[in-house]
């Protein structure tokens, strides 16, 4: 009798695991993140890039706008085609809180490659993840064709930001140090 109960408990746990996996897979990730968790049956296009490593000074030099801001909106869009595949991008809306370099409106749109629309999924591994409500330091390139921005160096150009400290692939600094570095780089 005991082993029957144990088996029932294990199978109930299994059913619970299945339910939670189902919830994760059916969740609309565009509401909270630009990164997609594909369903096994989705048709997935996976993009992986090998990149030039950008040090902080190069990130600064390559950017049109540098700011800190908060992610306030995330949504996927079809934009163009490649080899008969409709390309999916996910637009991220950011409200700027501190403009460190360049010019932009208070609210701006950043285009990131990848996203999900219906059963079609594109995953760009080198794009940074943006989460709704998250604050970040952003190095941005202006995209004149779209009137929006893209992140400089993809995952290299988005840094986490907390209490005046920023952390990215090129190091950890205070906002004041970043401001000082921008002034120094742009003066040369």
């Amino acid at each position, binding site marked *: 009798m*005991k*082993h029957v109960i*144990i*088996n029932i408990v*294990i*199978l109930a*746990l*299994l059913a619970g*695991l*299945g339910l939670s*996996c189902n919830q994760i897979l059916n969740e609309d990730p565009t509401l909270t993140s630009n990164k997609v968790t594909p369903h*096994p*049956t*989705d*048709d*997935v*296009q*996976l*993009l*992986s*890039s*090998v*990149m*030039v*490593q*950008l040090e902080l000074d190069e990130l600064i030099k*390559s950017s049109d706008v540098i700011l800190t801001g908060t992610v306030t909106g995330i949504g996927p869009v079809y934009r163009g085609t490649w*080899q008969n595949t409709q390309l999916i991008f996910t637009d991220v809306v950011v409200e700027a809180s501190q403009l460190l370099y360049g010019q932009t409106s208070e609210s701006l749109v950043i285009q990131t490659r990848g996203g999900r629309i219906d059963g079609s999924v594109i995953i760009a*591994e*080198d794009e940074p993840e943006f989460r709704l409500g998250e604050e970040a330091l952003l190095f941005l*390139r202006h*995209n*004149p064709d779209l009137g929006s921005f*893209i992140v*400089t*160096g*993809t995952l*290299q150009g988005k840094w986490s930001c907390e209490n005046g400290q920023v952390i990215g*692939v090129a190091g950890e600094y205070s906002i004041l140090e970043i401001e000082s570095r921008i002034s120094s780089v742009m003066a040369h």
Partner: protein
Amino acid sequence: MKRLSNLNIKSAMLLRTLPAIILVATIYASFVPVQIQAFHYSGIHWNTDTVYFKVDIEMDQALIDGTLAAADTWSNAGANFSLDSYWVTNNDVTAYNFGVGYEHIIAQCWISYSNFIISEADFIFNTYHDFSWGSAYDTFDTETVALHEFGHWLMLNDLYDPADSDKVMYGYIALDQIKRDLHQDDIDGIIYIYGT
């Protein structure tokens, strides 16, 4: 005697619950990608041991030569997997300029898959950059770049920890850098996925 029979009862209970435990462990394992420090593999793979690819003959000869050499390196890694050049396939190696904002990308790989099985793979050299087959200054070595991109075709993922910089799957390549040999961890990766 009593202790022995208690032991037998516990063993019997364990045996009876074993199928459910194995089932739970198997399902859990299928949702967790393999993330070993040595290499990173997401569980997606080809359903064949030979993948054919077609190089765009309009590309510079250095791009073609580097690509073919890189394919040979992976094919000779000791795994039950090979990359062969052939004319009739959808798996393309091409080159074009990625445009404004994507200058930091040296090459990009596209993998199409569903249900963990790859149906097509392509990779593209970004002609914004200058390439050579290891013979010119201020260029990217085509074989080094192609070796990394073919690693993606096998479904090995990028590594970004500086401690992994000697590995082919390290996500950054510098100008004039030559990395034409597989690191043992790259070899372990392909063997883990496709066997020997």
